[in-house]
């Protein structure tokens, strides 16, 4: 299949700059191809920025980056109208948000005010500045990165805003072999714009969505999904179960994942593959349960039978 080859080459291309992270790259692609925003959460220096920039490159999309700081204001992202003395009128200077891929670096360093300005734009696909609504480019992806929230000087995103991200990924340390290869490589972490080949054409990108909607979902799989969702709502380890929006996101990503793997139907393994990144940040452990979101996902996957009884 043509699209499958394109995806594989894109993954391979990103792999040249981000070594040994093929699984995460695939998931990130899946997220973007499902038209969702991506949150990458990890310690500094793990390649968050590299991944997002590389993704934009291989998809052939325009890319801008905003480093979020505590004194960043909404206008710094959205843009501002400036009085032009020559033709005596206000002219709008668009902010960095007017791009196809926006990297919001360290989103939890800025104030909630700026965070919500960005998240609103993410939800609606448009921004309203001084009473005028301006559409954002199509497609529009936000790849936000954040440090683990227990670091000092951060404003953790509330759950309702975490929900706006389709996936949350953690990169983790590279395996020793990949790391060694990185030490030996010439760029040694330096990443230049235009270094990567574009792998998906705009036609392929738009056509992809249509193909995904045709992916077949059988009753057996819906049963499995409903069992998963019911488990999160009934077990006492969960303070909050998966919302219908969360369940929809799961199904959507599973479809994309199936299509990425060249299948015309979703199998339980597709659902399991996207379960951790899609559900992990939406599940909150109850007071009785010591584990975090990741542990909850493991528990969920372990406890719910794939085949109905």
């Amino acid at each position, binding site marked *: 299949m043509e699209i499958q080859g394109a995806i594989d080459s894109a993954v391979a291309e990103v792999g040249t700059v981000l070594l040994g992270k093929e699984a995460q790259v695939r998931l990130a692609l899946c997220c973007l191809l499902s038209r969702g925003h991506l949150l990458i959460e990890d310690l500094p220096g793990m390649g968050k920025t590299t991944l997002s920039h590389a993704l934009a490159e291989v998809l052939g999309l325009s890319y801008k980056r905003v480093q979020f700081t505590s004194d960043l204001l909404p206008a710094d992202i959205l843009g501002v109208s400036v009085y032009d003395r020559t033709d005596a009128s206000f002219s709008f200077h668009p902010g960095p948000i007017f791009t196809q891929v926006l990297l919001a670096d360290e989103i939890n360093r800025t104030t909630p005010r700026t965070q919500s300005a960005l998240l609103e734009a993410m939800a609606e696909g448009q921004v309203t500045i001084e009473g005028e609504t301006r559409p954002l480019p199509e497609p529009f992806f936000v790849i936000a990165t954040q440090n683990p929230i227990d670091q000092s000087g951060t404003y953790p995103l509330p759950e309702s805003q975490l929900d706006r991200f389709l996936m949350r990924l953690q990169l983790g340390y590279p395996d020793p072999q990949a790391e060694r290869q990185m030490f030996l490589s010439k760029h040694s972490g330096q990443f230049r714009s235009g270094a990567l080949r574009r792998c998906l054409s705009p036609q392929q990108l738009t056509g992809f969505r249509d193909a995904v909607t045709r992916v*077949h979902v*059988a*009753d*057996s*799989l819906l*049963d499995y999904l*409903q069992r998963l969702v019911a488990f999160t709502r009934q077990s006492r380890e969960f303070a909050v179960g998966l919302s219908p929006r969360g369940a929809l996101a799961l199904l959507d990503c599973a479809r994309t994942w199936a299509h990425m793997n060249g299948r*015309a*139907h*979703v*199998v*339980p*393994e597709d659902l*399991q593959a996207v379960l951790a990144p899609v559900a992990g940040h939406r599940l909150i452990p109850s*007071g*009785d349960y010591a584990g975090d979101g990741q542990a909850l996902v493991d528990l969920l*996957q*372990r*406890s*719910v*039978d*794939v*085949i*109905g*009884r």
Partner: protein
Amino acid sequence: MSVPFGAASLIPRNALVWIILSQFALLLPHLGRLPVWVVLVYLLTAVWRLLVYQGRVSFPGRWVRIALIGAGFAAVFFSYGNLLGLEPTVALLLTAFALKLLELIRRKDAYVVIFLGYFICVTAFLFTQDLLLVLYSLFTLLLVTTALVALHRPGEHRFRVDTLRLPALMLAQAFPLMLVLFFLFPRIGPLWTVPVQSHAARTGVSDFMKPGDVSSLSQSDEVAFRVRFAGDIPPRSELYWRGLVFSVLDAGTWRSLRYHELPAAELRAPRLEPSGPELSYSVLMLPTQQNWLYSLRYARSPQSGVLATPDFRLYSPVEVEDQLRYSVNSWPETPLETELSDWRRRTELALPPASNPRSRELALGIRAESPTDAAFVDAVLAYFNRENFVYTLQPTLLSAPEPMDQFLFETRRGFCEHYAFAFTLMMRAAGVPARVVAGYQGGEINPLNRTVIVHQFDAHAWAEVWLEGRGWVRVDPTAAVSPERIELGLEQAVAGEGSFLANSPLSPLRYRGVNWVNMLRLRYDAWTYRWQSWVVGFNSDQQYRLLQDLFGTVRARTFVIIVLASGALVLLPVAWLLLGRHRRRPPDPAERLYLAFCARLARRGLTRGRGEGPRDFCRRVAGTDPALGQWAEEFTAGFEELAYASSGANDGARAQLKGLRRLLQQMPGRAAGASRLVRG
């Protein structure tokens, strides 16, 4: 006091309010029996606990609690005079129940209070098994269960009435099971008994009588027994319910003969040849803690456990501690004891020597003017009627050493026992065998269910004289003084003086004149009769009879099967409803086939984890046992095609399913399997 608080172990406010509400509801049916201070304890503890909740005061310390417990014991002791017996123990339990509120800190304390609540709900039945109480107990049961449900809803910080919904549903679901258990649960005798006799003795006719006894009984509107006749109800002037026969006059008190006073020849009840019309009826008697039963004259009971006495009464060898139903046949016109034995004649003529001389003199005088004993009886009755005697509920207290002389010649105000006393005395003085009979006279006919309700105020005493050739003849001297008492009942007889139920202003019987109140009361009494007959009176005999009617001869094994089967019959629909809700569609044949595939592999030691998908499992199988690999891959691919790639059942799917089923049978053998793999 330091208490380790954990958010999960705290009691939600909603639960606290429900617990306190149910405590007061549980107290209510006991109110009439309890001293006032118990109510104060309930109010105090509730207010204290609510103030603790608001943080204004703290929980009592250990010594305060110990002091409160001690005070509770002491107060019960001073109120009742002892700590044993039913009423003091229940009072103690209720006090402890209230005080437990001051220890209500964590969830485990709440469990103690709630389960104690269920127990207290049952204690009310130790005193009465009234229909209203049962309905009320269902309500308290709901309240206690609501508290239990509220306890399991953490974080409810407001009192919510709609918490009632779930427990109401649960109890409604339990209702059919309750019916099954009621009809089928074996009625096991108690393993031990508590002393039910309480310090407040029950009202009722006692086995001795002195002037003033019956009139005090007449202040009570309690029901003594209810009677249902098989045929027509006789006129009320014929309804003399004999309970006791007083043959001995001893120090101004009439009493019945003791068992040891009877000679051996007189112990057996003579069996008479019945004559005249027969009355057949059944009596539903409320507990009296006594042995004697009530019946119309010449009564026989076909029931085992109901015996006859030489003076033609019925009695039960064990005291009536529960309600008792017995059926009786009576022949009112049968002459009683036409031949009188010497001993009997002597006994029924005995009088204390030289007592009441003026009365004896009067009797002898009248006898001298009468030709026969029968004429003498009529003459004495005429004397009562002629002279200025008054029938009253408020007789003058007789204090003289010769009470009957005082009554006959001075006060002349008396109730039935005075007239029966005086009449029997005069008969015996003149040499006519006579005795006093105590029991009830009349009764109220409930037209709704054709029963006769006999109240305590229908208690009555009359006389029997023995006449040559006629045997014992009933003579009611009260009828000579106040015919209304016999024809119309006590209320009409004393209507002039307004003393009927003067001490119970709220008794619905006082408002019999108000038509709708009366109808309501009779309606309720009809319900009570049905309730007492069918629910309270449902004992092991009735249970056995019911089962026999339904299933023929019942043996132990059949009985167990019936119990289990009917329990299952009730529970299965509930289980089906509950489980059916989770099953969204009928099990998929492909999924069932896949489970069979997993079961086969499990027998080879390859168990699929719950969360393991078919592809992952297949990969693992191939990795561990290469001999199975190809077969497993083929099967998994086929299953995936069926379960996840195709939509709905069509011919293609059916063929695929068939192929898959065949493939399942072709699982490779254990060791040499790899070479024998057959393609499906």
